């Protein structure tokens, strides 16, 4: 499987077409030696090994260490909206209702957050494009800086109708769409579900989303039930996503160094004998 290295746009707010660059392990440029010698490990095998090794462990990137239940509680992630605003599909994720205030079940949030972070880490490890979306103007700058810090993309402005579904015409032919979309808030400014969730489902793009007690979690691939209004909570989410993505990318570089160096060495030796 070819590794797709990407050239990231400088602005970071649009996704540009990935030019085919020589993959880091140089798989395309080697010529296999005649069969007198025992078959050397192909570059393709190494890439596959790099890609599949993390899938064998449950928590390869150890994302569960990044947060604890107390951190979630202190960041007020458990506070939902009032009973009248409750979405019927969020009822399984609620712990209870204290004087008409919905309280989100943090045990469930822990599990969902762990799954979501793990998925994000694996996508970042494989060099996928991640798009952060949030229509909350209060946190627009925070989301954009988070995306910039992990080398990914953000879209916190007005979502044009054909952004994903009509991308080939709006951005030119052969655009590469994001491989994961992370919603820091699944609602838009008029308290309706963000168009991006439905569009991502249409374009077969998985989504990770923070769903509050007034949101619809049904179409989000990896929902994370939690508060999306408090600054402390949103800062926590941004920090967690940034740390996972950076961790995953660093790990990828490490794995390439570990696995590719011996292969290069063997190839070099083979070339000179």
């Amino acid at each position, binding site marked *: *499987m070819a590794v797709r290295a990407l050239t990231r746009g400088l602005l970071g707010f649009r996704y540009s077409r990935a030019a085919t660059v020589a993959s880091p392990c140089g798989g395309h440029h080697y010529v296999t030696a005649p069969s007198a010698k025992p078959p050397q490990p192909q570059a393709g095998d190494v890439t596959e090994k790099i*890609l*599949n090794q993390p*899938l064998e462990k449950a928590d390869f990137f150890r994302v569960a260490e990044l947060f604890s239940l107390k951190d979630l509680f*202190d960041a007020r992630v458990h506070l939902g909206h009032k009973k009248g605003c*409750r979405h*019927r*599909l969020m*009822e*399984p994720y*609620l*712990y*209870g*209702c*204290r004087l008409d205030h*919905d*309280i989100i079940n943090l045990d469930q949030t822990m*599990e*969902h957050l762990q*799954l979501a972070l*793990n*998925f994000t880490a*694996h*996508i970042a490890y*494989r*060099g*996928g494009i991640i798009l952060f979306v949030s229509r909350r103007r209060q946190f627009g700058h925070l989301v954009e800086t988070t995306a910039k810090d992990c080398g990914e993309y953000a879209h916190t402005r007005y979502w044009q109708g054909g952004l994903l*579904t009509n991308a080939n015409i709006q951005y030119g032919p052969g655009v590469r769409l994001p*491989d*994961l979309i992370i919603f820091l808030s699944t609602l838009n400014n008029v308290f309706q579900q963000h168009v991006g969730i*439905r569009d991502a*489902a*249409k*374009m*077969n*793009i*998985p*989504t990770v989303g923070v769903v509050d007690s007034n949101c*619809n979690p*049904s*179409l*989000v*691939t*990896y*929902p994370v039930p939690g508060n999306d209004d408090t600054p402390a909570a949103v800062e926590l989410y941004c920090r967690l996503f940034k740390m996972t993505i950076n961790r995953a990318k660093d790990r990828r570089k490490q794995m390439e160094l570990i696995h590719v160096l011996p292969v290069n060495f063997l190839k070099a030796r083979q070339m000179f004998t």
Partner: protein
Amino acid sequence: MAGSRLERFGTVFTRVRDLIRSGVIKPKEKPLWYDVYKTFPPKRAPLHVKPVTSPSAKKQEIVPEIFYSEDKIRTGFYEQYGRGLRALDLSKSNFVSTCQRFVDKYRELKSHGMLDKSSLFEETGKALLKEGIILRRRGAPPVLAESRDPVLDLKLIDMLAEQQSAGTDTTKTTEDKNS
């Protein structure tokens, strides 16, 4: 690349899986996230749920109300003493409010053996006063620092009546003086 835009039919994964199975998407063109999703699926498949339009029945409370046994003590406290003098500071996680101190003291006294509810209330109030927390009963008139200025109680009609009577007196005196 081939795709299926039916977001209300199956999940993202099932659609891509079926497209691969049928050969529309070649194994080489498999999306990046496919293997990861297969190994770590979410807890609930992200199927689209049709919104319930009919307002019929259901209405069963699945979300429980959260109440604690101390709530009874708290209601008693708020009924008697109103909102409390000290404001709640929610930014600190270890903050103890006046009501919470009342509750703790109440439970302490109860554990010592007192059983009567009203006497417990009295005792708790006294104990807190001893510790220095002032509790003001709700409905009691607010205590004034200084008494009302007697000038404010004067009415205009009385003042005019006084002035008129004073005026007749002065004319009388001036007449006496002149004569």
